[in-house]
């Protein structure tokens, strides 16, 4: 327990749920492995979606790739949030005060804002775009940003253990 952490996080760490995750033989390793498996689903879907928006796989109309990939990415994100909450709860006060985790949390906020506010509103217009048609620069830059952000989030996630 890290005393300088916010009270609410200390309470979360010391809750019955936090103790149960730490004391179970399986809970923590399962959440840990599940977080990585969910990451492969999430990062893979995001990469395919963003690659199409940037201009790859141009022979397929963008919506045919982007819409299912976006759905898959949301499932991946949900699983990441679920497993991530377990890992966080077990060590809430330490993790919250970790500088790399703080960077990661900010980047997740940025990535979600980009996905919901920039890419989200463009989805409807995407349905009408045929194969080989160039996509708006704004959308392509948003996809580029998305790739950079989510790869950095993954890197930060791995680096929490080293700081």
């Amino acid at each position, binding site marked *: 327990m*890290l005393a300088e952490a916010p009270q609410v996080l200390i309470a979360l760490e010391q809750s019955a749920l936090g*103790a149960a*995750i*730490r*004391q*179970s*033989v399986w*809970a*923590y*390793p399962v959440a*840990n492995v599940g977080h990585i498996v969910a990451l492969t689903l999430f990062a893979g879907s995001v990469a395919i979606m963003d690659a199409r928006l*940037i*201009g790859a796989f141009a022979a397929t109309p963008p919506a045919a790739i982007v819409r299912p990939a976006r759905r898959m990415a949301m499932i991946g994100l949900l699983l990441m949030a679920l497993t991530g909450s377990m890992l966080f709860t*077990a*060590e809430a006060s330490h993790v919250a005060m970790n500088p790399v985790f703080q960077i990661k949390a900010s980047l997740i906020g940025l990535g979600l804002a980009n996905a919901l506010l920039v890419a989200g509103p463009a989805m409807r217009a995407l349905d009408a775009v045929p194969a080989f048609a*160039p996509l708006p*620069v704004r959308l*392509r830059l948003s996809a*580029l940003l998305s*790739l*950079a952000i989510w*790869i*950095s989030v993954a*890197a930060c996630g*791995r*680096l929490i253990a*080293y*700081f």
Partner: protein
Amino acid sequence: MPTEEMTMLRLLTLCLVATALGAASVAAHHGWGSYDASKPITVEGPITSSKFENPHALIAVKGKDKVWNVVLAPTTRMVSRGAPAAFIAVGKTVSAYGYASTREQDEMRAERITIDGKTVEMR
């Protein structure tokens, strides 16, 4: 391929390489980054509290200078190395060799511990 597209792909490649290099240079710094491996210490004394928990087992050791929180290995590794919960029970005398935390006061991470004449590696 239109020029704009090529510029974007170049930019993307640059972004990815920069991220990978950044991550690699930081990771190469040190595995147990927040522990000072340049100054190994040995803490010896009775165990005053013992938590056999994930992600790492944790014991409090009443050393000569102060009470140290000693971070050990994940519980499954502890068991497979022959150090189950009973091995680190309260009251036993331990000698822990490891490194002090650079972030948290009174915390160290053990490279190995010796209890009842038996040494167990934590890494």
